C-alpha cells in the first residue's frame, strides 16, 4: 500500500514537472511568435495601405511566416473595405498567389487549413476563387461548406444556386446560423431563389429553412414574395408559421395582406402569438381599414394581444389615435393603462 502511494506521489510529481516544462516552453514559443508578428505585421500593414492609397507595387513575400501574416492582415482589412478598394486588394491577393495557395489548401487533410483556405477564397471572391469555392461545397467539414456556400451566394451567378440550396437544406440542422447567413446572401443577390425555400411541404425541406427564409424576406422587405406569403396565410398552417408569415408581411408593408391579417388577428381559435404577430403587422402596414378590428382587440384580455393592438393603433394615423383615446377612457384598468402609456410615449 505504502509502495503504491509512493509510486503515485512520484508519478504525480513527475507529471507536474512535465506540465511546468510545457507551460514554460509554451510561453517561450508564444513570445517568439508574438515578437515575429510584432516585427512583420507593421510592414504588411504599411505595404497594403500604400498599395491601396497610391497603387504602389507590392512584391511577393517568400518566407512562409511572412506570407501568413501578410494574408492575416489582408483578410482583416477586407472585412472593413468595400467597393473598388476591396476589389483592388482582392486583385493583389490573387496576383501574389494567395488564391492559388488557398485553393490548394482546400485539398488539405487538416480541417483548420481547409477552413482557412475557404475563408481566404470567400474574402477574395473573384472568378478564380469562385471555381475553387464550388468544390468546397462538397467538403466533409460543415464550416468549410457553409463558408463556400455563403461566398458563392454573394458573388456567383445562378449556375451554382441548385448546389447552394442543396447545401442549405442539408446543413440547416448542423449549422442553422451559417445557413441563415447564406439565405440572407441569397435574399440580397438572388431573391427569386428563396421561392424554393418557402414550401414547408416540399420533400426534404426542413421547417427551420422555411423559418429562416421567412425572416430574411421580412428583413430585406422582398415584396415579390408577398403573394406567396398571403397564400400561406390562407393555407392555415401552424401558429408559429402563421406568426412568422404575418411578421414578414408586416415588414414588407403589403397592403393586400390587410384583409387576411385582420381575419387572423380576430381568430379566437388561434394562439395569441400568431394573433399578436398579425396585429403588429397591421400596425406596420398602417392601413386605416384595420382600426375597427384593432379597437376591439385593444380591449382583449390577453396582455400580448392588447399591447400589440395599442402599439399598432398608434401607427394608424388620426383614426387610430382616436380609438386609443377612447380606450384610455375604458373602465377596465389594464386597458386604460396600456392605452395611456402608448399615448404618452
Amino acid at each position: 500500500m505504502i509502495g503504491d502511494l509512493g509510486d503515485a506521489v512520484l508519478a504525480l510529481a513527475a507529471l507536474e514537472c512535465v506540465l511546468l516544462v510545457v507551460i514554460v516552453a509554451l510561453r517561450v514559443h508564444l513570445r517568439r511568435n508574438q515578437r515575429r508578428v510584432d516585427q512583420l505585421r507593421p510592414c504588411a500593414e504599411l505595404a497594403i495601405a500604400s498599395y491601396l492609397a497610391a497603387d504602389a507595387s507590392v512584391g511577393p513575400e517568400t518566407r512562409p511566416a511572412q506570407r501568413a501574416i501578410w494574408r492575416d492582415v489582408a483578410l482583416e482589412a477586407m472585412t472593413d473595405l468595400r467597393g473598388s478598394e476591396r476589389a483592388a486588394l482582392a486583385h493583389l491577393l490573387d496576383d501574389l498567389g494567395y488564391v492559388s495557395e488557398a485553393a490548394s489548401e482546400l485539398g488539405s487533410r487538416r480541417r483548420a487549413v481547409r477552413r482557412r483556405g475557404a475563408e481566404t477564397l470567400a474574402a477574395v471572391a473573384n472568378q478564380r476563387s469562385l471555381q475553387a469555392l464550388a468544390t468546397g461545397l462538397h467538403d466533409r467539414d460543415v464550416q468549410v461548406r457553409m463558408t463556400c456556400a455563403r461566398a458563392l451566394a454573394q458573388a456567383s451567378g445562378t449556375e451554382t444556386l441548385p448546389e447552394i440550396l442543396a447545401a442549405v437544406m442539408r446543413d440547416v440542422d448542423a449549422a442553422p446560423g451559417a445557413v441563415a447567413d447564406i439565405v440572407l446572401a441569397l435574399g440580397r443577390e438572388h431573391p427569386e431563389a428563396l421561392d424554393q425555400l418557402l414550401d414547408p411541404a416540399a420533400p426534404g425541406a426542413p421547417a427551420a429553412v422555411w423559418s429562416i427564409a421567412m425572416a430574411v424576406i421580412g428583413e430585406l422587405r422582398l415584396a415579390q414574395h408577398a403573394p406567396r406569403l398571403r397564400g400561406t396565410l390562407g393555407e392555415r398552417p401552424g401558429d408559429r408559421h402563421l406568426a412568422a408569415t404575418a411578421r414578414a408581411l408586416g415588414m414588407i408593408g403589403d397592403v393586400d395582406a390587410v384583409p387576411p391579417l385582420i381575419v387572423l388577428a380576430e381568430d379566437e381559435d388561434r394562439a395569441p402569438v400568431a394573433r399578436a404577430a398579425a396585429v403588429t403587422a397591421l400596425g406596420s402596414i398602417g392601413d386605416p381599414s384595420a382600426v375597427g378590428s384593432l379597437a376591439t382587440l385593444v380591449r382583449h384580455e390577453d396582455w400580448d394581444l392588447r399591447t400589440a393592438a395599442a402599439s399598432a393603433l398608434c401607427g394608424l394615423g388620426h383614426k387610430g389615435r382616436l380609438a386609443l383615446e377612447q380606450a384610455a377612457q375604458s373602465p377596465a384598468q389594464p386597458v386604460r393603462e396600456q392605452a395611456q402609456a402608448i399615448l404618452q410615449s
Partner: protein
Amino acid sequence: MITFGIGVFAFFVAFLVVHTGLLVAAEIELHRYAVRTKAIGLRERVRSPLVPAVSILVPAYNEGLSIADSVRSLLALDYPRTEIVVINDGSADDTIERLTKEFGLRRITRPTPPYLPHMPVRGIYAPASDLRLLVVDKENGGKADSLNAGINFASHPLFCAVDGDSMLEQDALVKTALPFVEDPIRTVASGGLIRIANGCRIETGRVAEARLPAERLPMFQVIEYARAFFAARTGWSAIGGLLIISGAFGIFRTDMVIAAGGYRTGIVGEDMELVLRLHRVCRLRGKPYRIVYVPDPVCWTEAPASAKVLRRQRSRWHRGLIEALYLHRRMMGNPRYGVVGLVALPSMLLFEALGPLIELAGYGVSLAALVAGVIAPLGFVLFLAVAILYGQFLTLGAIALEDATFNRYPAWGDLRRLLGYAFAESFGFRQMMHLWRLEGFWQLIRKSEWGAMERRGFSGSSPGQSGSSH
C-alpha cells in the same frame, strides 16, 4: 476504519476520473473554440441583420456611486442592437437621482407586463433622447426579484444579466451571443468567462490593463477562477453538463426563461437554480437544446480582499449550491436528464457540496488513526501528498490552458506568481475555504431556511462548478 479508508479511496478515484476527464474535454473544447473563432469572421457575422437583439439587465442596489459609469460602459459595448434595463431594487441611496441627472430621465407611464411575478414597481423612467435605456424603480425584493422585473420589461428576444459592479470587455457581448447566432434554434443560455479585476488598471469603467492582484486573497481567487472557468466549466460545457452560468454575466433566451418561470426568489443561488430549471424544462419538452459556456468573453469583477467578506461570500455560495441541488434533487441520477442527471449533478453533489465535508473529515479521521497507530506515519504523509499533488496538477493544467489560449498575464513575473500561488493554495487557503463552506452548510441545517432570506443587497456570483475543492 477500513470502510472509511475504502470510502475515501473511492472518493479520490472518482474525483480523479471526473476532473481529469474535464481537463481533457476542456483542452479539446478550447482548441476547437480557437480554430472556430479564427475562421468565422466575428465582426462580419455580427453585422448581419439576423443577429438577435439583447436586453442588458442591470439590477442595482445602493450603487449610486458607480451606476452611471456602468451604464455608460454598457451603452458603448460592441453589439448592433441592445437596450439597457436598470432595475433599482429599492435602493436607499441616490441611485435613481444619479441616473436621472446623468441620462436626463423622465418618468413615463408603462403598465407592468404580467409574465413573471415581482415586487411592485414604483416608477418607470426613460431618457427624453433616443438612448436605449429604461430604468425600473421597484420595491426591494432581492436580485432574483429584480431580474424578474427586468425580464418583464425587456423587449428583446435575448437578455443578458449583468451585475452592476461588473465590467464587460468591449466585445464580450458579441462573443457570448455568438452561440445564439450560430445556433438560434437550440441555444437557450450562454455564459462567459469571469476574471478578477483587483490589481487591474481601470479607466472610465473599463479594464485598461490586465494585471494580477497585489494582495494575497484575491491572488488565491485568481487561481480558483482559472480552475473553475478554464478547466471545469469549459469541460462541463463540452460534454453538455454545464450547471452554472454566473449571475455576473450570462445571456438567456427571454421566452425560455419566462416559460421556465424566471428566477426563483428567496434563495441564494438563483443563477444555478435557473440553469438547472432550464435543463429540466428543456429535457421535459424533448427537443434538443444547448446551454453553453464561451471560454473567451471577459467580465471583470472585484473579488473580496478581506477574510471577513470572503468568508461570508463562500458560506453564502455554498448555501446557494446546496439549495439548488436540493430543489432539483429529482434530477440527480435520473437518466431522463442525460449527462446532467447522471454525471454533472452527482459530481456537483459529491465534489462540490459534500467535498469540503469529506476532505476535512478525511484529515480528521486520518489524524486520529495516525495518533491511534492504525496507519503508519509514512502512509499518512504519502496519502496527503497524493491529494495535494493531484490538486496542484489540475491547477497547473488550468494555467496551461489559459496560457495556451488567451494568455492575459504574459509577463514572466506573472507566471511565477501564478505558479507560486498554485502551490501555496493547498497549504492553508484550501482548508480555510472548506471550513467557510461548511459554515454555510451548517447555517442552512441550523436555520432550515429554505426560502427565508434576509439579504437586501447584491454581491458577486459564484464561480461555481469550479473544482474549487480538490
